[in-house]
């Protein structure tokens, strides 16, 4: 009985993605009516400008929003289960900080004398360089954390290592900022605001591969995450191979969060908030229910945040990272208070 109830919620929420997707692509500096969207999608006879805006700007942006929502919320759920701490998110492993360091080194490099004139680089290679730098930064931190996870059999130690790596990279970024030109600084700070835009279809395919692989690994971990609810001792006694579970969790979370941060910059709070809402909706901590629910809620949340970010008629886009935090933080508080009852 309980199971069917959950399935109805999941199906309902999944279906809600479709209208929100259309709202997201219809709203913006030039509003496009739903009928125009339908004509563009299915009829093919539309003004060029509308079709261009839709196919080249709004649709990829909305697709990225869905992917980002799924990726960050699952990666948050994985970290919360691993560290048995509801405040854990993708950022606890220092992946965001690794990505920041990568981007800082590229965009601020001339300031610290690496000999790369970043402005001209960015003109020539644009987003690919940023994507490469942040992915590489995230991957290096992820590799260090995995190495530690392999050697140290203690989750609290792992948490501390993640936080320390975060502090370490933050200070390196600080040094790089101190020595760089205002123009470059602005470039870097713009990146830290996060952005769902400017991503082309080839990149969406790569991001999708990251998300699918991370999602599949996460699916295989539902059973282990449930066992971890009873604590590591009990989990082990019921056949959980803790080491394999930790490595796979970190790998999956890093692929998901690292991929997103690489393409879109740091986007906060989705990873913490979506699993919280999923728990309140499911009224359960069963990860077989929480995993799909978190993914769907994350996607919905990102679509809503993206819609809000370009709501204004004037063409101004509010940074996505600010909106997710602005909406996410109160939601986490409400979900926590509700969950305690």
């Amino acid at each position: 009985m309980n199971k069917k109830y959950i399935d109805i919620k999941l199906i309902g929420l999944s279906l809600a993605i479709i209208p929100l997707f259309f709202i997201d692509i219809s709203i913006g500096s030039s509003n496009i009516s739903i009928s125009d969207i339908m004509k563009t999608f299915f009829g093919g006879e539309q003004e060029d400008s509308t079709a261009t805006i839709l196919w080249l700007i709004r649709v990829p942006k909305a697709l990225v929003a869905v992917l980002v929502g799924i990726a960050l919320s699952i990666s948050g759920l994985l970290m919360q289960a691993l560290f048995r701490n509801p405040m854990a998110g993708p950022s606890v492993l220092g992946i965001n900080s690794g990505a920041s360091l990568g981007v800082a080194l590229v965009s601020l490099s001339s300031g610290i004398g690496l000999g790369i004139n970043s402005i001209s680089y960015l003109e020539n290679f644009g987003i690919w360089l940023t994507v490469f730098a942040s992915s590489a930064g995230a991957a290096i931190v992820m590799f260090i954390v995995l190495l530690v996870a392999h050697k140290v059999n203690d989750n609290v130690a792992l948490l501390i290592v993640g936080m320390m790596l975060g502090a370490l990279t933050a200070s390196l970024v600080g040094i790089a900022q101190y020595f760089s030109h205002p123009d470059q600084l602005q470039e870097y700070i713009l990146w830290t605001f996060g952005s769902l835009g400017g991503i082309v279809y080839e990149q969406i395919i790569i991001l999708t591969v990251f998300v699918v692989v991370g999602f599949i690994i996460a699916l295989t971990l539902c059973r282990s995450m449930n066992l971890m609810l009873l604590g590591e001792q009990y989990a082990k006694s019921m056949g959980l191979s803790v080491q394999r579970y930790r490595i796979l969790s970190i790998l999956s979370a890093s692929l998901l969060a690292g991929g997103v941060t690489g393409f879109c910059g740091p986007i906060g709070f989705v990873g913490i908030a979506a699993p919280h809402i999923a728990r309140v909706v499911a009224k359960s901590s069963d990860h077989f229910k929480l995993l799909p629910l978190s993914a769907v809620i994350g996607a919905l949340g990102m679509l809503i945040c993206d819609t809000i970010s370009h709501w204004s008629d004037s063409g101004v886009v509010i940074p996505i990272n600010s909106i997710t935090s602005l909406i996410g933080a109160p939601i986490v508080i409400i979900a926590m208070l509700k969950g305690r009852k």
Partner: protein
Amino acid sequence: MNESVLSTRNLITGYQDKGVAPKVVGKYGELHLRRGEFNVLIGVNGVGKSTLLKTLSGEIIPLEGEVTINGQVLNELSNTQRSLLISFVFSNTSIVGKLTVFETVLMGRYPYVNWWGKLKEEDHRIALDALKDVGADHLKERYINTLSDGERQKVMIARAIAQNTDVIFLDEPSAHLDLINRIEIFQLLKSIARKKQKAILLSTHEIEMSLQVADNLWILYDKEVKIGSPSEIVATNFINQTFSSPSIAFNAKSGVFNFCASERLFSFKISLSQEVENYKGPIDPVIYLEWELKKMISEGAYIDGNPQFDIILRGMEKEEALHWEVNFDGKKYTYDLSKCSLFSELMKLYQLD
């Protein structure tokens, strides 16, 4: 004798760190856990109970020897394979999140399903039966965080039953429970051992209770183990030898630990007079006397053939009251039972002297 499920050969437990001489915790040689038997592991803190349990469950590799379950060497098995042979209950459960009792018990079936965790109708039936076995099926839909400590431990035991292993280990499962819950848990485990033919080993500090219900006691001392039935262990005065401390004495007849004082004050003799038989009040004079005796001993008085104080519990003419008659230093004193503390009155006399 029942069939042995778990056996050890030349077992030496301990820890081996790189570059350091191994630290031996215990040399136990050959041990057996048999079907249908409720075994209790006792020993003072730090003697190696947890190390032994972890070694017998395959979590720690023994320094020497091997542990086998149904003929399979434990250290050659994976964690998942071991979870089909041994289930565990720990003293504290910190559950993060919302899980119902039934969901928790169902997790006992996880070793039997694949990574996708697809549970069958049969798994649900086994979990429900396990809840019934511990008398907790009425809690089925409750969230586990809302249970009392005693209820939660029963649910964790149900989960171990659902795991359906030949061996069940319990590491101080009653540590946080009140007396009634402790007794219930012990009785429950014993009946599970009998009815389901499980081999159970439980570590605890409840010696007095274990003496009453355990089939065998495993007493750890000085890196060794003494195994025997409670009657055998008590009758050989083994408990007093092992748990010796100046402040405690085991009374082998009553199966109870008594307090001893650190200093010896005075000697006494205490007895009941004939006319107490006429007493009609609410107190049982024999029991009253026994507990006064315990109190005196705990304060530092001792029993002697040539006592300084000769104390007699006497009845009175009214038939509803009792009083103490104390003979000390050739004089006789009487005290109303209900209006004074015998020991403090004796102390007054003793200090005056």
